[in-house]
């Protein structure tokens, strides 16, 4: 029953995409797909797979993840803290640790990121490894989400952090190889979809609701923004360090870097 429901919603998401594709295929390009049966089967698999995936998450992981976010923020609050000014950010280290861990874990399983990293591995001829890219992105998300929780706890303004992050991204952009920049920017946008958003949003709203002096409406948002900027940094930083490292050891650029430059 649950599966049918989710299948229905997923199907509704696909209709506009399918409509656009079919209209352009028939009316503008006026030609047939080279392999329509294979594409149709692929579409059905994507739909079915996504629906199953979501139902499974709904069954197994989301309820626990959301409850845990609440329990963690509650457990810190057991000591009676009176006024808003008494909030000490050091009391919340468990929350930061949980945020980092869950940010990492959900990003590794994110289907959009899997799609982009598979494509990146194919396009770069293996110079960018799909699994490695996902790990680096996940590290970025984990740092970002835990810093975002620190921001909610301290109540400091969101724009400062994000704008500072932009500055770092810009500096890193000019120091890194041209070939990695677009991929790094893309990996910021894909980290936050099906899996990460619900858990991370629950964490942010729960945190803002339990800490005295924070409003869920103003302080609860922003974790997703952190989770989309930090992977850009981590991917760029990783690319810079690995090329710096191979230079320092006095080697020729490694095989994979040469391949990346040649693509």
């Amino acid at each position, binding site marked *: 029953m649950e599966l049918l429901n989710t299948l229905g919603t997923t199907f509704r*998401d696909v209709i*506009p995409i399918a409509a*656009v594709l079919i209209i*352009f295929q028939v009316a503008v390009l006026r030609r047939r797909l080279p*392999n329509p049966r294979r*594409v*149709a*089967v*692929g*579409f059905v*698999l*994507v739909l*079915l*797979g*996504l629906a199953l*995936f979501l*139902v499974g*998450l709904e*069954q*197994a*992981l989301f309820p*626990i993840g959301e409850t*845990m976010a609440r329990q*963690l923020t509650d457990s810190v609050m057991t000591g009676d803290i009176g006024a808003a000014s008494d909030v000490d950010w050091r009391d919340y280290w468990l929350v930061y640790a949980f945020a980092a*861990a*869950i940010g*990492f*874990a*959900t990003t*590794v*399983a994110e289907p*959009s990121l899997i*799609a*982009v990293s598979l*494509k*990146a591995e194919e*396009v770069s001829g293996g110079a960018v490894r799909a699994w490695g890219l996902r790990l680096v992105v996940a590290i970025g998300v984990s740092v970002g989400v835990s810093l975002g929780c620190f921001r909610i706890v301290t109540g400091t303004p969101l*724009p400062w952090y994000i*704008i500072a992050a*932009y500055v770092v991204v810009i500096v890193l*952009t000019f120091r890194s190889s*041209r*070939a990695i*920049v*677009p*991929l790094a*920017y*893309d990996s*910021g*946008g894909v980290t936050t*979809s099906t899996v990460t*958003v619900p858990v991370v949003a629950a964490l942010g709203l729960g945190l803002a609701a339990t800490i005295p002096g924070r409003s869920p409406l*103003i*302080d*609860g*948002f*922003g974790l*997703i*923004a952190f989770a*989309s900027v930090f992977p850009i940094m981590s991917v760029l930083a990783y690319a810079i360090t690995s090329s710096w490292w191979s230079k320092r050891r006095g080697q020729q650029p490694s095989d994979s870097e040469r391949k990346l430059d040649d693509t």
Partner: protein
Amino acid sequence: MWARESARFLFPMARRMADSLRDLTPIILVIAFFQIVVLRQPFPDLANVAVGLVCVMVGLGLFIQGLESGLFPLGEDLAWAFASKGSLVALLAFSFCLGFGTTVAEPALIAIADEASDVAAEAGAILDNDSARGSYALELRLVVAFSVGIAIVLGVFRIIKGWPVHWLIIGGYVLVTVMTVFAPDEIIGIAYDSGGVTTSTITVPLVTALGVGLARSIRGRNPMVDGFGLIAFASLTPMICVLGYGMVT
């Protein structure tokens, strides 16, 4: 024929399942660790969790299989067809429709728009009743969907022209920074978050394949340097548009 097809299909499926089990291990470990060691709560409803995990594994496997046999070839094929037809207008119209169409119905965006209308009502920017909130949320969704359409058009145009992606993105960052200063405080968090939620799991593979396909079919473009970057635009323009919307209303 059927048997051979299914054999060819089943073998990679088994490997994919193993891969998705590996992908899920971190989530399982994190939740188990915090549940048992830190919070010391009993694991609720273990059977349900196990069934759910199997669903997730099979689902992820099917999804990736479908990507490679359906969405990736389709995206690249479309790019190739548009490039060989040589009609820039048709390509840009298609890009806009793809961006707009896939975003306007995006569930994550609907959720964010509803929350934003609550914030606006609370702050007194709009009347605090259902119809005012409803129309605010709908307008916001249209604004974001429009901005994603523009983003894909801009990104595709960039691939054709071969402009470096970082100048456009950095320009966008500067614009976001400037607008943040003038936008009302309540909208900022929502605007920053709206960038991350607009690209759905089905749009991402299609758009990525489209970009890479275009870069491959145009002479002198490098798929690594020029093919990626469409998603980056799609996550930047909604921030600009939502901030702008917050300033106007």
